């Protein structure tokens, strides 16, 4: 794969050479990159993609809104409106790129931090926040949206993702050539997840059955406090070799590269070409969650270095240099961000706690006498203590 700044793409004022010396980690041999951290566009015949100005601005807009969503959620957590927040700052290019690459019929199996991919699919952001408020485990309809519920058990969504793909095969929805029928699956997971035995089984099953699955690994360098070196002595995309499928390393802070790589992998899967492993090399800029304290285990310098590679900044630089962003667009986007923030704040504070008795509704599809009995017991006590509230002796919890 070649990788040079040529053709219609202007060399950036700073010049890539000098920049590479400053930030040696960005460019890796074999890493697909179309837009470097200085906003310089690079050509790669194998992975290049042609986007209209509209599409480029669309990606930019989505990343900006995703970041605003994230910071607003973090603020809501700080104000006690959410119980917890798993931030996605720094991973905008990865998530928006992968989310945009998927077609509407492609089934997404996200982890718990893949907000950008869900927003790209059109999931209502409030349906994500309800999880972190403790209302439910995801407000969206997984069938309608083709988005599986967030999975918190590390790697546990991967085998179901493969099975879904095996189902797609049995439905004859692979390799027909009909772009609206052929269907693929994206399994989202992190660097830490690659250590789980189930992750290895998922890769193997997909390879054995040639299932239409793209394994999208966001290597954000950390699994809570553990650096990726604790998960693997070799680059993660090399796991693909052992499993017998192509492995691609992509600059996860470059939305163009991610979009291109994931799109190709999905096309291949839909055409019946089988699974691909994509390692999206990125960084978790914030804490693991709002419960985490990263000062205990990582240096500010590392975060600072990655700030230089910010996915949004580089796209803005590029679009600006190309004359594709104007003040009007920026102003509109700022207003849209504000509106989103207001909607999130209002939406969250308007959220109703679920009716307690609803917890009894969905454990089983068909009646389970013990659950029914417990529900009746619960309801009786509930009514009783509603009455007691006015006259009764005890109330409240321990």
């Amino acid at each position, binding site marked *: 794969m070649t990788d040079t700044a040529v053709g219609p793409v202007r060399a950036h004022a700073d010049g890539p050479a000098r920049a590479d010396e400053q930030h040696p980690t960005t460019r890796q041999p074999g890493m697909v990159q179309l837009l470097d951290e200085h906003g310089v566009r690079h050509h790669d015949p194998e992975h290049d993609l042609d986007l209209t100005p509209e599409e480029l601005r669309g990606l930019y807009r989505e990343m900006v809104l995703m970041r605003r969503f994230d910071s607003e959620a973090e603020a809501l957590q700080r104000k006690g409106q959410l119980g917890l927040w798993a931030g996605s700052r720094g991973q905008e290019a990865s998530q928006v790129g992968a989310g945009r690459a998927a077609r509407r019929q492609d089934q997404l199996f996200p982890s718990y931090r893949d907000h950008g991919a869900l927003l790209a699919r059109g999931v209502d952001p409030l349906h994500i926040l309800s999880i972190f408020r403790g209302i439910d485990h995801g407000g969206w309809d997984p069938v309608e949206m083709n988005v599986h519920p967030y999975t918190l058990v590390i790697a546990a969504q991967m085998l179901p993702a493969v099975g879904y793909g095996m189902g797609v095969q049995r439905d004859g929805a692979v390799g027909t050539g009909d772009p609206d029928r052929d269907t693929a699956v994206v399994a989202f997971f992190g660097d830490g997840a690659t250590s789980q035995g189930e992750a290895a089984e*998922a890769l193997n099953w997909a390879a054995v059955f040639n299932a239409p699955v793209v394994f999208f690994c966001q290597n954000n360098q950390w699994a809570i406090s553990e650096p990726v070196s604790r998960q693997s002595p070799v680059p993660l995309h090399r796991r693909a070799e052992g499993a017998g499928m192509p492995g691609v390393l992509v600059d996860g802070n470059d939305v163009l590269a991610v979009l291109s790589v994931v799109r190709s992998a999905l096309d291949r899967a839909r055409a019946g070409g089988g699974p691909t492993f994509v390692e999206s090399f990125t960084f978790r800029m914030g804490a693991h969650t709002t419960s985490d304290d990263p000062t205990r285990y990582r240096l500010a310098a590392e975060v600072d270095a990655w700030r230089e590679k910010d996915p949004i900044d580089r796209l803005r630089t590029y679009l600006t240099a190309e004359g594709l962003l104007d003040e009007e667009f920026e102003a509109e986007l700022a207003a849209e961000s504000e509106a989103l923030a207001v909607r999130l704040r209002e939406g969250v504070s308007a959220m109703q706690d679920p009716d307690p008795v609803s917890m009894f509704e969905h454990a089983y599809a068909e009646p389970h006498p013990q659950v029914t009995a417990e529900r009746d017991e619960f309801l009786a006590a509930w009514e009783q203590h509603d009455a007691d509230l006015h006259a009764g002796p005890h109330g409240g919890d321990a």
Partner: protein
Amino acid sequence: METMAIGRAINAGLRAAMDRDPRVLLMGEDIGALGGVFRVTDGLQKDFGEDRVVDTPLAEAGIVGTAIGMALRGFRPVCEIQFNGFVYPAFNQITTQLAKLRARSRGRLSVPVVLRIPSGGGIGSVEHHSESPEVLFAHTAGLRVVAPSSPHDAYWMIQQAIASADPVLFLEPERRYWQKGEVDTELAPGQVTPLHKARVLRPGTDATLVAYGPTTKLALDAAETAAQEGTELEVVDLRSISPLDVQTVAESVRRTGRLVTVSEAPTFHGPMAELAARIQESCFYSLEAPVKRVGGWHLPYPAARVEEHYLPSLDRVLDAVEQSLAA
């Protein structure tokens, strides 16, 4: 009416379900050409093809995990776990995904997966082939756990399990696979006993014996022996561990005043503890003796040459009955 062994009846039930619904498929290790180590899927791959009878890689988490995914896509997978002791690699998928997906999605997702597990011992096997882990699943909300004890039940219950919108653990009594009996394959849906209903197999007045799966025959044998000594035992086949048909057992106990339970599963923190706890509550004033439990000991299943001393025996059951009657 046809005479079949239990293993054969499950095979026939699977075939009927596959004939009826093209989205039913089977997954497991060695279930294709070999027909499974107990031959329960014999001939099915030949007739339904490799896409519907899938020989899988050797990975139980993979089997259950991908079955979940297929169910999400609208299929009804029936997984064979080769032996009871090999279900544990799949535990994470069963417990955190299979059992919970309906609740996690507030009813929007259905995962109608059936896990068939040859269960219990008594066939002289090496380690890990003779265990009765049912309570681990019965305690896990979202799962159903059933255990047929006769060819007729095996034939129908596997079809009911497949038809259920909930995930079902289907425990097959290993040492009874070859036990023959009459199967009425012609019943209309309404005539089949509901999946989770216990069944009184033998009426009696002196004490109630409750069993399921492989110990049901033992309970019947015990009742027969006791009858020769003039004691009339009522035998209830539980058939389901989750849910528990406490009502049928309680009605019996209210008549007999005494309850002895029999399971191969270890007694300690085992499935009959729940039954005992519920019966002592619902029949507190009818019980004339404490509930007695006969089950496996709290030990790793022992080597084959000792298993007869581990498994509930006729002696142990009759001893427990005697103690109950003497109380």
